[in-house]
């Protein structure tokens, strides 16, 4: 009789009989990676990617180059530092990261009981833990203390009274996850698996976490392991790092990227079509639709490039040629340019972890430990590819600023600027000096109204 009442869907997959075989877990892990494309993270790479709004548009790097309208009020709230509790971008970021955490929590819950190849299980655990750490690392930096969820929740009221946990405890979870991940993940990723995380991605991320926590020797140790692995180098020219033409395996600068694919298979990137100047026919830029004006570089950004920096032209343009041949002066990002595909269907991957990032973090870690001269070669490695002269003999403080400047131009429009200034504690100072109405409380985003409405135990960040 109970059997008669146990009906499972026949034309939809149910979770009941899932999480059994290696293939099930592989599908679940892919499903967890796919969450990189949640609009709260990187979405389709364009204007629906919260992480770019929350790290680039709120910084001195860029602004929103579109016309303000009812449909983009939340985006302008960020650009204008007048962020409401119901801001859709921050709300989406919160939701998206927790959905990602939910997916891997379920995998980690079910994995021990499943019977299949132990090596494979270890790898899936590593990938799941890496993704959980990645999501929490973003959350804890965006929102401060957040809800600690490390087990799957299987009822609708399961999170109704979970309070915020001290950020340091969240960091403990992140570090523990990444430590297991770096042991479990493979050292090499074959071309057919490009897009999955490796041991090195875990170490690079762990190095970044330690650096953020100011655990400098541990940071330096992890970053050094990546550098000495011999797996990575700086692609030349700089543009090759972002080119859709260079395959992931050939591009040794990229350690991990969000994967996009053209061909109208629902996996394309809107980064290029949304970055083109606002309202302009995109046929001028080799794609369709009209320009999104997204992440329009500021004049300050334009001026941040030293004369002769090869990266400038590969990263941004200050004008375009209109159909009638006239020149129109509008700054726009060209880093992810790909001519050919329709709007929203580009192939260009979006880098999450790069070798250049690792080199600069290593330099930062060494310098902060007082080893400024030991740090110099790693800064200069990055500068050399950009065609810029070496910097030597700087004081520790000046070297710090040099790294900050180098990161700004090297990693421009890649979602680093806000995090970098947060880590160095210079966000308010830098922004205020440039006339932005940034205040101390802007170091954190507001806990979304949606969440505080649903869970009265959640406290709000100060200032909101």
């Amino acid at each position, binding site marked *: *009789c*109970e059997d008669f009442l146990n*009906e499972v869907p026949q*034309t939809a997959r149910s979770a009941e009989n899932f999480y059994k075989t290696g293939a099930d877990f592989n599908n679940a892990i*892919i*499903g967890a990676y796919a969450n990189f494309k949640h609009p709260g993270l990187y979405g389709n790479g364009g204007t629906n990617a919260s992480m770019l709004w929350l790290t680039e548009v709120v910084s001195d790097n860029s602004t929103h180059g579109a016309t303000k309208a009812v449909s983009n009020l939340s985006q302008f709230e960020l650009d204008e530092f007048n962020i409401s509790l119901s801001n859709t971008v921050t709300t989406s970021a919160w939701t998206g990261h927790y959905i990602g955490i939910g997916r891997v929590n379920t995998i980690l819950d079910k994995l021990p009981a499943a019977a299949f190849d132990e090596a494979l299980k270890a790898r899936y655990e590593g990938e799941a833990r890496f993704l959980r750490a990645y999501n929490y690392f973003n959350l804890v930096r965006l929102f401060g203390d957040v809800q600690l969820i490390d087990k799957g929740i299987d*009822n*609708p009221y399961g999170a109704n009274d979970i309070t915020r946990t001290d950020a340091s405890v969240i960091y403990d979870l992140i570090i523990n996850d990444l430590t297991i991940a770096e042991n479990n993940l493979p050292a090499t990723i074959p071309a057919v698996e490009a897009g999955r995380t490796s041991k090195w991605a875990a170490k690079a991320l762990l190095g970044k976490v330690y650096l953020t926590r100011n655990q400098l020797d541990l940071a330096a140790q992890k970053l050094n392991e990546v550098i000495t692995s011999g797996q990575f180098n700086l692609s030349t020219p700089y543009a090759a790092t972002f080119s859709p033409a260079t395959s992931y395996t050939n591009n040794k600068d990229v350690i991990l990227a969000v994967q996009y694919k053209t061909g109208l298979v629902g996996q394309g990137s809107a980064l290029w079509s949304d970055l083109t100047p606002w309202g302009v026919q995109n046929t001028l830029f080799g794609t369709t639709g009209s320009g999104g004006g997204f992440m329009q570089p500021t004049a300050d950004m334009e001026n941040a490039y030293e004369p002769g920096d090869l990266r400038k032209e590969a990263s941004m343009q200050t004008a375009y040629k209109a159909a009638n041949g006239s020149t129109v002066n509008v700054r726009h990002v060209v880093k992810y340019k790909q001519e050919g595909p329709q709007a929203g269907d580009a192939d260009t991957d979006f880098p999450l972890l790069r070798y250049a990032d690792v080199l600069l973090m290593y330099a930062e870690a060494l310098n902060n430990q007082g080893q400024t001269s030991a740090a110099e070669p790693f800064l200069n490695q990055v500068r050399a590819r950009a065609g810029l002269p070496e910097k030597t003999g700087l004081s520790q403080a000046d070297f710090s600023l040099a790294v900050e400047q180098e990161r700004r131009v090297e990693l421009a429009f890649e979602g680093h600027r806000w995090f970098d200034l947060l880590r160095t504690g210079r966000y308010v100072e830098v922004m205020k000096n440039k006339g932005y109405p940034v205040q101390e409380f802007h170091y954190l985003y507001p806990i979304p109204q949606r*969440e505080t*409405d649903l869970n009265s135990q959640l406290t709000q960040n100060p200032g909101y």
Partner: protein
Amino acid sequence: YLLITFQALAQINSLTGKVTDENNQGIPGVNVLEKGTSNGTVTGTDGSYSLRLNNNGSVVVFSYIGYTTEEMSVNNQAEINVKLVPDLQTLGEVVVVGYGEQQKKDLTGAISSVNAKDIQKIQVSSVDQALQGQIAGVQISTTSGAPGGNVNVLIRGVSSITGGVQPLFVIDGYPVSNAGIGNPLNTINPNDIESVDVLKDASATAIYGSRGSNGVIIITTKRGKSGAPRIEFDSYMGFQEVGKKLDLMNAQEFAGMVVDARNAGYLDNFPNGNINDNNTVRPGVNFDISDKYRDPSTLPTTDWQDAIFRRAPINNYQLSATGGTESIRYAVSGGYFSQEGIIINSGLKRYNFRANLDGQLSKNLAFGVSLLPSYTQLREVPASGHYGALGIIASATGMDPSVPVYNEDGSYGNTIPPVDGNAAIQNPVKIANELQNPSSQFRILSNAYLEYTLLEGLKLRSSFGVDLNYYKSNLWNPSTLSSSAPTGPATARASNTENTNWLSETTLSYKKNLGGDHLINILGGFTAQRAYNNSVTVTAGNFPDDLITNINGGIVNGGNQNIEVNNLVSLLARANYSYKDKYLLTATVRSDGSSRFGKNNRWGTFPSASIGWRISNENFMSNITFVNDLKLRASYGVTGNNAIGNYRAISLLGSNNYVIGDAVVPGLAASSLSNNDLSWESQSQLDIGIDLSVWNGRVNITSDYYDKRNKDMLFNIQTPSATGFTNAFVNVGEVQNKGIELGINTRNLVGEFQWSTSFNITFNKNKVLAMNEETARIFGSTAPRANSNVTQVGYPIGVFYGRRAIGIFNSDQEAAEIGGQPNAKAGDIRWKDVNEDGKIDDNDREVIGNPNPDFFFGFNNSFSYKGFTLDITTNGMYGQDVYNAMFAINNSGVQNNLSFIDEARWRSPEEPGSSQYGRLWGRAIRGGLNGNTSYSSLYIFDASYWRIRNITLAYTLPAAWLKNIKVQNARVYVAANNLYTFTKYIGYDPEVGIAESNQTAFGVDFGTYPLNRSFTLGLNLSF
């Protein structure tokens, strides 16, 4: 030897006589049966009969519904005249209750019955339409006049917000699923129905457990009676026409409105403009005025309603035979029903058969079989909805009247591509002719039972039934038919659904007089039911031509298969106890296990109890002789609503593909949260009722008070993101329906001229008592307005929610002084500043109407004189509002040719409009900045009505005329349906609703297929 035989023959009596009623009037149609045989006949029109007896010592039985059965011993008499006594208040009448029958006098629950005569007097395709206005507590709305169109049936109000609200339909004991063309009643010929019993209170419905809380409608089809074969032929034919046409503007009025509206819009948007500016100066096309509108005097006028409506035939033929012996009885019939729609190219055809067989295999073993096959064909046209979605009504009432139906070259006239600054509207005649959407359904409901009498009064009954239901539809939209361009891509869709359902039931019943005054009747049972649904839909596009009008002609570009199963296992029990025929007690309990419910809540138990007190049987009442029956009833019980959808408790996985190794690889992730606690919606209901019959049954009154509380309603709530999901289905909230029902039947005049009246009225109040904390409001949306209806605590379900219009600004200055509406000018609508913040925006919305009636009623009269009978059936509703979306989308002075709009519009402070319905409509303006067409109280109308549903005049031919043609009974009639509706409502009909059974968006009129008025001529013959 020969002589003896002759003598024996001679001894056989031929019995004749006449059966009369209490007024000495002959009763036609009385069954006369030689007891213990199949030998019988039926009385003729004057009540006389003639029966050849097999045995002169027989007993002859005279039986007729509504009268007590008489048995007479023949004793070699040649003539027996019988006077039948009315069965007072039809107390002996048997009512079908769940899993059994009960005498009406013993009922303790609220059950209403309608017999065959009252069902068949209205010529409709489906019995639910015929029930409208006949039963207290049952609100029936024909929300579409299309053949086979939707009918909403609500028993005692809307009791669920997001779950199902329709009652459970039980056909010959089989609870059927609600799938196919219309509801399951659409597959049954109303002529095949013996009775309809409506179970309303918990005492009656709890025996159906988790399916009982929306009420239960039990349909019983006709079964054979032993006796001579009786063959009946029933037929009617007639025509239908649109019940009401709306006044449309002529081309000149339309042109005048267009000119004013475009000038006003131009000045609003371009303050430096001048109305004398020509089209080259005016930006865009929205404010262009073509020359034909500037000088419209010679423009012809097309009546678009005449173009789409027609006089359409309706036909019904049915042949049936009943009869049998004591050991086997049969009732078989075959019928054909055809109804063309009043909108061109729509219609319904139905072929149906019925075979009911009952027999006695041995003294203790009885069996029966029922088969109800039917085949229905439907041709649908897209009557409702926006003209942009090819809505025929919106196109016809929106089209420029100067456009012809056919151009001179024979092509269809339309405004595609947009010409003269008008919106693109397709020709509604072309839509009806070229869009093909035929569907068909084959359904066979079959059931068989065995009943074994173990002991006197103790019966074991086992039945098994299967309901096979297949339907398919094919949609073809040719390339020539687009709503916005001269041609568009052709599309086709094919859809096939298989619905199979089986039911197994075993019950044990025991009925015993315990000696003296104690009578018990106990029932226990076990049932299992499985519903399987498999639907496949395939779509195609990219057709190279229009030669192949199905998916094979194009490239298949989409497809979907959906298989759903739901299983139900139940245990049920009922006990009736009666003491001295005065004190009655009923208790029921049902336990349902359902595959729909979460693991932790798989079984639900639904108990009920009721008591009855027949005061009229008390000694102290013996002197009060005018009271024939007086009974007080009270019941309380819990029932459920399991219409919460399948697999909602289970966490489902969705596709979450990603790119790995530069290839798309499949990924999976949970797309919904499991909820192992998910369960039925639960309802507790209190009912207190009174039944009174006085003056020899001349006046019968039944009244009930009820209070229903629905708890644990299915809600899709928001969940904290930390769950990994943003929403989930849970059970929360509470809705109350409470009300009073009153039914009065009177026989006002008896004698040669008879007059009887039945009246029923229901007051129901619906109120949301609690909702999920986080979901303060649920919006219901019906195109073209999102969030037109709101469901929130303290209000009825699905009330209208929008801005409140509080007048017109008569001058620019007045608008500026009052403020809050910076763009308002003279002739614009003034809104109420609900939150008093000095500005008008979306926060200034409030409840502006209620689609639920305050009360609804039926008022029916029957007259008869000699062979003539006249039936007048009326019904009405009071206090419900309708949101007229037709006006809302079209009231911008561009896409509307309803005269009403032109008459009511503001022209100047001196001519503010005709103020119809106590409100002002504002100026005609296209693209005005004040947003006069915002969803507001301007478009909410009182839709109270009183409708003459049916008038039937019938004449039963005298038996003397029929003798020679071997016809026992012949009746001819003329009938008019929906003859007239008294209403202030300005649309086609006050009974509307494009949301069909979506209870959170009731009462929206957006080009609903209008109801028809029909005239038919009918004939009933029996042989």
